[in-house]
């Protein structure tokens, strides 16, 4: 059944038991919304040099958007920003594939639990849900690292 390809067990599991939910101390905070459906996320990033010390978030939205934020937290915290960016770009590529990318082992190694969202990419209306927290993270990172770069030069 097609629905199961979207709502993989791992997605439902992240939805019901989210990782790292709640707002904690951060270097930058962003608020992103998906105006078509009202999904919202407030997300903070905390950097320790180049390393992501924490990604904390609070939001409301569908299972896809909430599970995606949980996967983001699990996958990126503890990674260096360059590696995290690579993961983010791979996830973006998968989500924009309209279901045409069948994740291979290499992709699965990069994305881990996030490969479960491959089925979501077949549903154009839901791709934005899956990407909401990832775009928020990208934005927050630009702000956090941009600001720390400014601090260094100051």
């Amino acid at each position, binding site marked *: 059944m097609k*629905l199961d390809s979207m*709502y993989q067990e791992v997605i439902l599991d992240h939805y019901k038991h989210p990782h790292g939910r709640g707002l904690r101390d951060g270097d930058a905070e962003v608020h992103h919304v998906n105006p078509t459906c009202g*999904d919202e996320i407030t997300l903070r990033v905390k950097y320790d040099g180049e390393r992501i010390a924490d990604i904390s978030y609070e939001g409301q939205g569908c299972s*896809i958007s909430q599970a995606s934020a949980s996967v983001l937290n699990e996958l990126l915290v503890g990674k260096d920003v360059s590696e995290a960016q690579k993961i983010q770009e791979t996830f973006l590529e998968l989500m924009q594939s309209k279901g045409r990318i069948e994740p291979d082992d290499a992709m699965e190694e990069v994305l881990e639990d996030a490969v479960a969202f491959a089925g979501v990419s077949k549903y154009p209306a839901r791709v934005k849900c899956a990407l909401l927290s990832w775009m928020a993270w990208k934005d927050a990172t630009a702000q956090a690292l941009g600001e720390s770069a400014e601090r260094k030069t100051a």
Partner: protein
Amino acid sequence: MTQLPGLLDTEAIRKDFPVLDRLVHDGKKLVYLDNAATSQKPRQVLDALSEYYERYNANVHRGVHVLAEEATALYEGARDKVAAFINAPSRDEVIFTKNASESLNLVANMLGWADEPYRVDHETEIVITEMEHHSNIVPWQLLSQRTGAKLKWFGLTDDGRLDLSNINEIITEKTKIVSFVLVSNILGTVNPVEAIVRRAQEVGALVCIDASQAAPHMPMDVQALQADFVAFTGHKMCGPTGIGVLWGRQELLEDLPPFLGGGEMIETVSMHSSTYAPAPHKFEAGTPPIAQAVGLGAAIDYLNSIGMDKILAHEHALTEYAVKRLAEVPDLRIIGPTTAEDRGAAISFTLGDIHPHDVGQVLDEQGIAVRVGHHCARPVCLRYGIPATTRASFYLYSTPAEIDALVEGLEHVRNFFG
């Protein structure tokens, strides 16, 4: 099969709507419950559109050739049909726009540029309600920001109705315009027009009614409403997209300034200044949506052949049945009136803490089309402390069996996320 008093012969009606035969998702019967977003189109309307393009296509009010004259007659004939449909005193009071949003923006801009006594400025007030569609909020916010006029609104009661308890404080001597929805697209509430109009008339304010969710579903009589402007759109009433209507009282349309300038709306033009055509043409700059107007005319013929009072009774019976059946679904909360009393056939609800997006997705998999989200009425969601709702909305071809399918589908949703 469930039989309810007042139902139309949907078996016959559904034969007119080709899309209702579609199978989706590997052979599932389409259950189309998204009529508040847009209605499906009967063959009669589709035929009118293709016949127009196949036989008559020309620009209107310009040429002297046969096609131009016939196209003009068809376009203006559609205006006559709309005028009769809403019981307008004059056909010249019917302005064609591209949708209800444009109609409402047109009113806001007429008043923003008007001279006294209509002019909205920093000393005046605009009144709307908390249950408006964004199309009846944002144009007034823009007008308020540009003129300095104060924007005020009626709040909502817990059961989804307008709170008019402070009507005399909301509508005051400073109020220039009161603009409100006749039937809410998210709550389904039918609003008490008379009470609002009476107060507006006491203070000399104009009244604009958004009838987008009313005109498709009930007999419309702009004279009985006693409003100054009434806006609605064609695509929710079996017509094509790209055609809307603004009805306005003749003396107002004569006095108020045009908004869009261009061809068609002028009398004479020199390099220094222009004079304008009389209404409605003054407000119809450029080539209008001709085929779409003709299509709307065909939609009106179609609705009239069934009877708006019969459509109203059909939907009322369905709504009564739907609120009863939905009440049987555990954890389901209707957002809006919970009875069919003073209520239209759009029913919004939440289902436990399952997000509407997920509800809609699982329903879609069963062939059931509903709308999920904030329905362009986000303040309503904020008012009731919910992120979004799932909305089922019915029309003349909807059946009790489709409501049963929805209720079954919702059981499936609960099991899926349970």
